[in-house]
């Protein structure tokens, strides 16, 4: 009996050795955390500070012999420095390595030749893609590695820049945050910023739109000297880059989508056009609905907004915000301005770009008028530019602020 027990114990210990999951052990100090990814064309410029004469040599060392295909991309990774910053002169918490190739995965694996530790993608916060790459390759191909690998986060932010993407990884944030975290967190306040689309622009949503063959949008990021800013959006027809949309049109789109939680609307004062009055939106009810009348499809957009007067650029003696008639005039003027913004945005979407942004109108028609959608879905791209939108905006000023 005792022998049996000993044998059973030994078997159990042996089993533990094989089934305890130690094969997946990865020590923290043996990881190189990737915080941000930049994707450029293979022939994009080198990192700042490299002697132009040395460029071809640096590129040769960075890359690898590739038997198939052409080197289309330059992949740059921003890695977190885990050690102390030496003499303290180097203020950056991160450093960047690059590689050129045709496959993201192959480049990433080859970059282990530039790293003393394994590359860890679980904490990637942001992907920045240059416009040049998007003009050359479809978004689906560029993002395939990131959507397929289980290490990647679904919530990572994806930005597009008109210039090169790698310099963003070299950028040292003024608040000493790690670069990738800083760039990712910039989008978090999109609900208060009408000029940034924000919502449904993270990797998971982009993949969702790509799978649904929908048009999609991404955030535009730009850098000049030490200024980095998000603003406007980048428009895609399916996965093909179409162009940029300015901040004013983004505001109109956010009104249509109802994705803003707060907004600032500026109008000239109805009585004194050289003065400015600013409305701060606190709450809204937005409803976009399709209607079918015979063969005619049209949409109605009903918006009710509630908020305060946020600022008055003028003479408070002349503009009495405590006068209810004046407030009525303001409400009507704010409603007109919001309508104007929406019409501008529709003009960009329908006439200039001819793209149903995020397939919003198509998805509403599919959801609420499925029979009509079944008839028109094949011709939707041709029909969309002529679809009328009837807008009704009602603004309610609930408060004038803490001063008249």
């Amino acid at each position, binding site marked *: 009996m005792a022998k049996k027990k000993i044998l059973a114990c030994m078997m159990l210990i042996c089993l533990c050795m094989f089934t305890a999951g130690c094969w997946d052990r990865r020590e923290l100090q043996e990881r190189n955390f990737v915080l941000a990814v930049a994707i450029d064309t293979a022939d994009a410029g080198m990192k700042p500070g490299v002697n132009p004469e040395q460029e071809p040599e640096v590129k040769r060392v960075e890359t690898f012999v590739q038997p198939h295909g052409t080197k289309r991309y330059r992949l740059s990774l921003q890695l977190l420095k885990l050690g102390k910053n030496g003499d303290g002169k180097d203020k950056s918490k991160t450093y960047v390595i690059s590689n050129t190739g045709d496959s993201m995965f192959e480049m990433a694996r080859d970059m282990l030749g530039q790293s003393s530790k394994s590359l860890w993608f679980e904490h990637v916060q942001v992907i920045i893609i240059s416009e040049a790459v998007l003009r050359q390759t479809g978004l689906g191909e560029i993002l395939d590695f990131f959507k397929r690998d289980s290490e990647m986060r*679904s919530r990572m932010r994806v930005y597009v820049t008109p210039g090169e993407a790698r310099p963003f990884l070299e950028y040292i944030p003024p608040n000493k945050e790690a670069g990738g975290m800083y760039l990712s967190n910039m989008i978090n306040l999109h609900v208060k910023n009408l000029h940034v689309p924000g919502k449904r622009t993270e990797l998971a949503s982009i993949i969702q739109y790509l799978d*649904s063959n929908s048009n999609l949008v991404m955030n535009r990021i730009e850098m000049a000297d030490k200024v980095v800013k998000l603003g406007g959006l980048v428009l895609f027809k399916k996965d093909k880059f179409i162009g940029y949309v300015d901040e004013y049109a983004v505001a109109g789109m956010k009104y249509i989508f109802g994705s803003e939680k707060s907004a600032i609307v500026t109008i000239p004062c109805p009585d004194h056009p050289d003065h400015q009055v600013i409305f701060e939106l606190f709450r809204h009810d937005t409803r976009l609905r399709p209607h079918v009348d015979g063969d005619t499809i049209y949409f109605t957009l009903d918006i009710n907004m509630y908020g305060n007067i946020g600022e008055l650029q003028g003479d408070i003696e002349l503009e009495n915000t405590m006068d209810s008639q004046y407030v009525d005039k303001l409400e009507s003027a704010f409603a007109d301005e919001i309508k104007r913004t929406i019409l501008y945005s529709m003009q960009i979407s329908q006439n200039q770009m001819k793209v149903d942004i995020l397939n919003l109108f198509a998805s509403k028609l599919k959801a*609420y008028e499925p029979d009509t959608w079944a008839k028109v879905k094949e011709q939707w791209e041709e029909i969309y530019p002529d679809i009328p939108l009837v807008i009704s905006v009602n603004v309610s000023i609930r408060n004038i602020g803490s001063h008249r």
Partner: protein
Amino acid sequence: MANLEAKTYMSTLQLMIVTITTCIGAQIMLSPRALIASLGQAAWISVIIGGVIFYIAACLMLKLGKQYPDETLVEYAPRLFGPLGGSVIVLWFNLLFFLQIIEIFSGVGKIITFFMFDRTPPEVVILGLLVVCTYCALQDWGTILRVQQFMFFVAYSMLTVVWLASMLNFQPENMLPLWTANGKNVISGGVSTWPMYSGYECVLLLLPLVYRQANFAKLAKIMGGAFGCMTLFFLMIIIIIIGVLTVENAKSIPYPALNVIRSVELPGTFIERLENYLLLTWIPVVFDTLAVMMFFMGQVCMRYYGYVDHRPWVLMLVPIVYVCSILLLDDQQVYDTISKYTLWAGLGFSFAVVPLSLILSWRQKRKAGARCG
């Protein structure tokens, strides 16, 4: 000394719990993609229809079981179909559990390896799970019942709580249009939800433990409760997947339930990558399904060959289960073919074997009655 764990009775509520824990298992991760791909927007209606269809099947089984109060299918099948026919039916019955077990082991091995332990071979993941399930299946029914009850209240509630976090990304308009024009597809879709509901066949083994405490009406009511819970649970899974991902997106993802939870961000917390939490709560749910199914397989063999102990049979089946699960790992085509055959075997058993058995048992009883005068 008497074995206190060898339970000879259980309450109807316990039967309900065991039915739920046997049915709800790995398929909540493995089935949704195929269901949504074939039914699209109407997948949720098919889940409801499936619930009704398989509830009817379960009621037929209750009715059959009531004809033979102290016996399981293994004992009365040879009397109904003859020695050879009876053996085929018992083999068919046991094969249902076996096919489901190997599919679940294989699927779970793949998922755990891909999402959690990418360096561990799935063979090792399967082996670890198989050892734990075997240990549980080697116990007597009293112990297993306690495990099932514990899991029902702990693992399922944790799984539900984690899963409901995905409501944060729910877009109601993704569910529209709610109704589909093709009713035929929806009904055939209802039948194809069998892998989700499968496991209710266990009542044919468990009825002798409860029959003295309940009449058919009460058992049907209890089974209705079990199917109601299961339908609600599966509805919650399918509706949230479509509402978060859209039908088109869900079709392109092998395990959409994990992608749903993966994109959840809990604002103001340090909790990230919720798919790992979902997997951690899902593993116990899979464990209790597999353990109880392995126990049922052992019981069927024990009763068929006239043994008094199910344990040697469980141990004998372990290497077969392991090898077959491993064989399914490498070839998706074989996996899909086995799944298809399992579906047909399950439907055939519920809607051909059970009604036929019922008819035969009524006929035999009528004949016996006539002979008695």
